[in-house]
C-alpha cells in the first residue's frame, strides 16, 4: 500500500471516529453551529481527498452527505434525528468502504445508489427523507448488509451480498453498528499520532536511563561482582535498544523540511524572472526532529540564495550556452553517523575576483595574503560575517546577513559547512550534521585537574606526546606549540591554557596526549593531560548565564554522577584562530597527508636566518645570487636602503624587522632576486644551508611575507613568500617595463599546492594573469567552459591525467589547439623531454628554474604577438 493511501486511511479513520461523536452531539443540540461546521468540514475533507486519490465510490457517498450537511449549515434544512440517522448511515457506508480499502488496497465494488438516493431526497427536502420512510430504511438495510460486519468479511465481495435477499433483521441502531465497524480499522491502524511532548519526555527519560545504566556499569566494574554482571549486561543491552527505538520515533524524513521549498522556488522564479527547476533527492533520509527543526531555516535561506545569487537569468544562461532553466539540486544522504546535505546550483558560480575585491575593500585581509590563497580559500570568505557579494539588495537576499548566519546555525548543532564552486558552472554547499543531538559518544579527557568531554565526531586520532623517545614531541615556535605528525605540522592548543586552568606542576607541559581534531577542513591538536575512555553522554544545554562561554557545547552527567562540561571543537577552533575561515587548503592537504596518500617532490631550498625565531627558507631556484656586501656600500635614500650593484641601484629590504645597519667593516649577507634587468636584495642575518627536501607547507601563517611553516631537516622552518618581499622593494618595482597593454593569461596546471603557491604570486607579480588548477581534468573542464588562455604551463607528473595526456588532449581538439604549452618537471630526463615535445609541449623547463620559466613565457608571448 503506498504511503499516500496509508496516510489517507489513518486520517479518514480518525475523522470518521470523531464524526460519530460529533453527530450525536449535534443531535442533542441541533443549533450548535460550531459542531455542525466541524462535521461539514470533516466530511468535506474526506470528499476532497477521495477525489484526489480517485476513490469514486467513497467520493460519491461523501458528496451526497456533504450536500445534506451543507443545507443544515446554511439553515435551509432543519437538523432532525432522522436526518442525523441518515448521515450516520452514510458514515457507516464510508467506514465499510474504507475497511474494504484497508483490507485489499482498493475500493471494494458495491452499490451505494439507495443510500445516495436517500441522502439526495433529504437534500431536496422531500418529506420522505425528513421522516424516514420505509423506502429509506430499506435502502439503509441494504447498505448495512453490504457492509462487512467483521474484518474477515471485508475481503468478501460485498456486491454479491448486497444483491442477495436480506438475511437477517437489519440493526436499527446505526450508532452501535458504526462502532462495531469502526473497531476493525482502529485495531488495524498502522500509525498513531503521538504528541511531540510525549516523545520529548520519553527521550528525556531514556537519557536518564542511559545515565543510570552507565552509573551502574561503573559501579560493577569497580566491584567485579559476578552475580550482578549478567543481569546488568541484559539491562545495558535493553537500554541501548530502547534508546535506539525512542530515537527512531523522533526521526523524520528530511523531506519534511523541504516541503515548502518547491513553492518558495516557484515564487522566487516568478519574482526574479528566472526559470528554476528544483530537484530533490534523498528526501526520505531521516534525522532527529530537533536537528530537522534547526536545519530548516538555514536550508531555506540557502535555496533562496542559490536561486537569487547562484542562478542567472534565462538571457544570461542562453549567452553562456546553458539551458534556460536553471537547476537547484538538493541531495541528502547518510554517511557514518552523519547526514550530508548538498545544496547545489548550475548557475554562475562564485566570482573569485569580486570576492577578492570585496575582501580587500572590507579590510578582511591583506592583498599579500590573498595572493597566496587558493580559489577555494577565497570563496570561503562568503562565510565571514557581514559578507554579501550581491551587488544589489533584492527582496530575497543580499542584506549582508547571509552565509555567516547559516554557518553559525549549522555549527550550533555541531555541523560543518563547506562549498565547492566553479565560476560559470555553479556552486554546491555541503552541510554535514549529526543525526541526533541528544545522545553522543564522547571522549573523556582531563586537563588542569578537570575532566571534559570531547564529542567523538570531531576526533581524528589520539597521539601520545613526550615520554618514550620515538613518540611524537610537542615543539614550540616562539610560544606556540606545534607537533610534527608523520612529517606534517599540526597546530596545537593547550586545553588547560585555553581554559585558564592551572598547568600541572609535576610533569612538564610537553607531556600528555594530543587529541587530533578536525573542524571543517582544519585539523588541529588539543593538548590534554590524560585520556579516559569514551562514554555515551546525554547532552544537556548549559545554564543561560554560561552560554557566552563558546568553548562548551553543553554539559552532562557522567556515570559516576559528576557533572562535566562538553567541549565544542568549533568554539575552540574559533577561539584560537585555527579555523577562523582563514586559509585552510593546506590543512586539508595536511589531512590527506595524515592518510599518507600524497607524495611530494623534492625541492632545493636555501635556508637562512633572519631575526629570531625559526629558520627561514626560500626555493633556491628563485634566488639569482648570494652576495656578501661590505657595510660601507649600503647607502640610504628616502629612508630606504640601496646598493650600487652591477652598475645599477638595487633596493635592499631587511628580511626581519629590527634590522640594524651593520657596523663599518662588517659585511651584510644579501639574497639577490632579479627579473630581466631589475634586481632587489633581501638582507638576512646569515645563510645557513642549501638542502634538497620534500616540503609540505602547513597552515598559512598570519605573518606577512611568510607562506607558512614546513618541517625541513627535522626543524620547523618558515617559508618566505617571495612576491610579498619583492613588493616591499617598491610598489611598481615588478611592473613590466615594456608598454604591454594586455595581460597575458596563463593557465597553470600543477597538482602540488606548494608549487602553485610559489609560482602564482611570482607570475602575477611580473604581470601575468594566472589561473591555477589542480589537475589536468580541471584544465580540460575550463576549456569546455570556454575559458581562453595565452599560455598553458603544466606539470608533467600529476595523478590521473598527467601533463603528457593533457597536452595530447589539448592538441587533439578544441579551442586550445594552438595555445603554446610549457612543460614543468622536476626531472630533466632527455627521454621525458622528447615525449613531452612529441605530445605537443612547445617548451620544457625544470621546476623552480624561475629564470627559464620566465624566459619560456616571454618567448611564448612574443611568438604570439605579431610585431
Amino acid at each position: 500500500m503506498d504511503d499516500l493511501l496509508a496516510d489517507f486511511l489513518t486520517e479518514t479513520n480518525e475523522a470518521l471516529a470523531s464524526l460519530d461523536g460529533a453527530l450525536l452531539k449535534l443531535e442533542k443540540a441541533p443549533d450548535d453551529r460550531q459542531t455542525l461546521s466541524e462535521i461539514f468540514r470533516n466530511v468535506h475533507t474526506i470528499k476532497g481527498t477521495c477525489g484526489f486519490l480517485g476513490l469514486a465510490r467513497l467520493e460519491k457517498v461523501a458528496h451526497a452527505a456533504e450536500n445534506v450537511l451543507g443545507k443544515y449549515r446554511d439553515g435551509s434544512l432543519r437538523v432532525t434525528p432522522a436526518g442525523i440517522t441518515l448521515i450516520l448511515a452514510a458514515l457507516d457506508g464510508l467506514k465499510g468502504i474504507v475497511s474494504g480499502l484497508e483490507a485489499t488496497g482498493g475500493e471494494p465494488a458495491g452499490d451505494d445508489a439507495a443510500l445516495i438516493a436517500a441522502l439526495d431526497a433529504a437534500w431536496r427536502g422531500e418529506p420522505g427523507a425528513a421522516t424516514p420512510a420505509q423506502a429509506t430504511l430499506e435502502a439503509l438495510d441494504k447498505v448495512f448488509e453490504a457492509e462487512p460486519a467483521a474484518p474477515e468479511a471485508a475481503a468478501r465481495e460485498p456486491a454479491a451480498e448486497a444483491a442477495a435477499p436480506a438475511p437477517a433483521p437489519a440493526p436499527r441502531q446505526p450508532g452501535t453498528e458504526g462502532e462495531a465497524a469502526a473497531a476493525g480499522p482502529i485495531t488495524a491502524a498502522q500509525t498513531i499520532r503521538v504528541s511531540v511532548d510525549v516523545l520529548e519526555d520519553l527521550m528525556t527519560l531514556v537519557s536518564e536511563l542511559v545515565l543510570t545504566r552507565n552509573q551502574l556499569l561503573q559501579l560493577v566494574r569497580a566491584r567485579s561482582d559476578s552475580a550482578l554482571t549478567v543481569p546488568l549486561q541484559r539491562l545495558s543491552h535493553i537500554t541501548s535498544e530502547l534508546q535506539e527505538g525512542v530515537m527512531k520515533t523522533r526521526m523524520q524524513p528530511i523531506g519534511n523540511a523541504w516541503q515548502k521549498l518547491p513553492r518558495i522556488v516557484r515564487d522566487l522564479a516568478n519574482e526574479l524572472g528566472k526559470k528554476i527547476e528544483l530537484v530533490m533527492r534523498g528526501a526520505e533520509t531521516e534525522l532527529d526532529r530537533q536537528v530537522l527543526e534547526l536545519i530548516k531555516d538555514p536550508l531555506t535561506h540557502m535555496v533562496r540564495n542559490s536561486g537569487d545569487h547562484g542562478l542567472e537569468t534565462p538571457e544570461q544562461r542562453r549567452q553562456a550556452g546553458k539551458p534556460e532553466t536553471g537547476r537547484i539540486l538538493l541531495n541528502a544522504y547518510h554517511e557514518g553517523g552523519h547526514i550530508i546535505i548538498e545544496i547545489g546550483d548550475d548557475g554562475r558560480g562564485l566570482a573569485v575576483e569580486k570576492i577578492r575585491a570585496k575582501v580587500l575593500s572590507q579590510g578582511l585581509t591583506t592583498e599579500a595574503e590573498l595572493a597566496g590563497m587558493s580559489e577555494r580559500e577565497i570563496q570561503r570568505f562568503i562565510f565571514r560575517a557581514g559578507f554579501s557579494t550581491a551587488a544589489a539588495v533584492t527582496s530575497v537576499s543580499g542584506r549582508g546577513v547571509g552565509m555567516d548566519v547559516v554557518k553559525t546555525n549549522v555549527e550550533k548543532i555541531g555541523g560543518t559547512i563547506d562549498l565547492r564552486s566553479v565560476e560559470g558552472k555553479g556552486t554546491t554547499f555541503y552541510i554535514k550534521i549529526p543525526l541526533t543531538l541528544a545522545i553522543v559518544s564522547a571522549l573523556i579527557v582531563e586537563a588542569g585537574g578537570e575532566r571534559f568531554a570531547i564529542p567523538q565526531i570531531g576526533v581524528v586520532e589520539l597521539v601520545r606526546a613526550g615520554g618514550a623517545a620515538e613518540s611524537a614531541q610537542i615543539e614550540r615556535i616562539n610560544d606556540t606549540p606545534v607537533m610534527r605528525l608523520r612529517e606534517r605540522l599540526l597546530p596545537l592548543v593547550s586545553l588547560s591554557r585555553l581554559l585558564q586552568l592551572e598547568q600541572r606542576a609535576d610533569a612538564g607541559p610537553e607531556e600528555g596526549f594530543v587529541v587530533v581534531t578536525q573542524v571543517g577542513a582544519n585539523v588541529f591538536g588539543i593538548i590534554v593531560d590524560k585520556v579516559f575512555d569514551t562514554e555515551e553522554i546525554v547532552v544537556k544545554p548549559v545554564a543561560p548565564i554560561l552560554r557566552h562561554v563558546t568553548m562548551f557545547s553543553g554539559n552532562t552527567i557522567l556515570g559516576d554522577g559528576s557533572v562535566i562540561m562538553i567541549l565544542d571543537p568549533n568554539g575552540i577552533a574559533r577561539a584560537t584562530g585555527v579555523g577562523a575561515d582563514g586559509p585552510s587548503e593546506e590543512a586539508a592537504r595536511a589531512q590527506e597527508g595524515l592518510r599518507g596518500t600524497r607524495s611530494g617532490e623534492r625541492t632545493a631550498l636555501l635556508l637562512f636566518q633572519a631575526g629570531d625565531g625559526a629558520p627561514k627558507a626560500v626555493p633556491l631556484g628563485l634566488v639569482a645570487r648570494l652576495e656578501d656586501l661590505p657595510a660601507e656600500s649600503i647607502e640610504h635614500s628616502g629612508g630606504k636602503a640601496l646598493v650600487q650593484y652591477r652598475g645599477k641601484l638595487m633596493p635592499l629590504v631587511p628580511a626581519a624587522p629590527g634590522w640594524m645597519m651593520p657596523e663599518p667593516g662588517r659585511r651584510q649577507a644579501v639574497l639577490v632576486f632579479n627579473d630581466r634587468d631589475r634586481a632587489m636584495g633581501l638582507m638576512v642575518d646569515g645563510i645557513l644551508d642549501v638542502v634538497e627536501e620534500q616540503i609540505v607547507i602547513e597552515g598559512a601563517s598570519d605573518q606577512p611575507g611568510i607562506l607558512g611553516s614546513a618541517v625541513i631537516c627535522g626543524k620547523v622552518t618558515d617559508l618566505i613568500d617571495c612576491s610579498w618581499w619583492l613588493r616591499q622593494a617598491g610598489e611598481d618595482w615588478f611592473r613590466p617595463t615594456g608598454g604591454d597593454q594586455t595581460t597575458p593569461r596563463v593557465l597553470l596546471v600543477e597538482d602540488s599546492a606548494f608549487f602553485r603557491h610559489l609560482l602564482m604570486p611570482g607570475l602575477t607579480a611580473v604581470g601575468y594573469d594566472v589561473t591555477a588548477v589542480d589537475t589536468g581534468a580541471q584544465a580540460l573542464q575550463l576549456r569546455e567552459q570556454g575559458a581562453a588562455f595565452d599560455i598553458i604551463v603544466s606539470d608533467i607528473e600529476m595523478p590521473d591525467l598527467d601533463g603528457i595526456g593533457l597536452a595530447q588532449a589539448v592538441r587533439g581538439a578544441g579551442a586550445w589547439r594552438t595555445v603554446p604549452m610549457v612543460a614543468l618537471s622536476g626531472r630533466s630526463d632527455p627521454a621525458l623531454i622528447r615525449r613531452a615535445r612529441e605530445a605537443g609541449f612547445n617548451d620544457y623547463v625544470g621546476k623552480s628554474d624561475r629564470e627559464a620559466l620566465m624566459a619560456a613565457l616571454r618567448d611564448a608571448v612574443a611568438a604570439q604577438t605579431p610585431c
Partner: protein
Amino acid sequence: MHAPMPSSAGLVRPPVLADAAAEMFLTLTVAGQLCGVPVLSVRDILGAQVITRVPLAPREVAGSLNLRGRIVTAIDLRRRLGLPERAAGATAMSVVVEQNGELYSLLSDSVGEVLPLRTEGFAANPPTLDPVWREVSRGVHRQDGQLLIVLDVDRVLAIG
C-alpha cells in the same frame, strides 16, 4: 545527598502566624549577614556537594552540580556580594532555586529556618547600603533585634 534542615522538620509546619500579610522566607547567612529568600522559590536544600568548576565562567559561578540527574549551576553568594572567600575547609550549603526552568544553587555559609515575615516589618534599603547589596536586596526586615536582608533571587542571578 539531602542535608537535613539544621533544625527538625517541624520547621516546615505552617506557622501560626501565616496570613495574607506575611510572606514565608528561608533564612540563610552569608559572612555573618542574615538573609532571606522567598521560600516558594526554593526547590531543595543540600549539604556539601561535589561541585565541578566551569572554566571561563563568571567569577560568581562556583560550578555545576548534579541534583538527581539535573544539572544545577552553583552561585557563590560570597563572591556575588563581593565578600571574602569562605575559609578553607568550611562547607557551603546549597539553596536550590528555580528560574525560567533552570536550577541554580545559592551557596551560603549556613541555612537557618523558615520564617513568616509580616509586611509591616519591611523597610526599604537604607540609601547608605553598599551598592552590591542594594542591587540584590528587596528590602530590610527587623527580626528579633537582627536585620535580615531580603534577597531578590532574579537579581542575584543576573550575572554578567
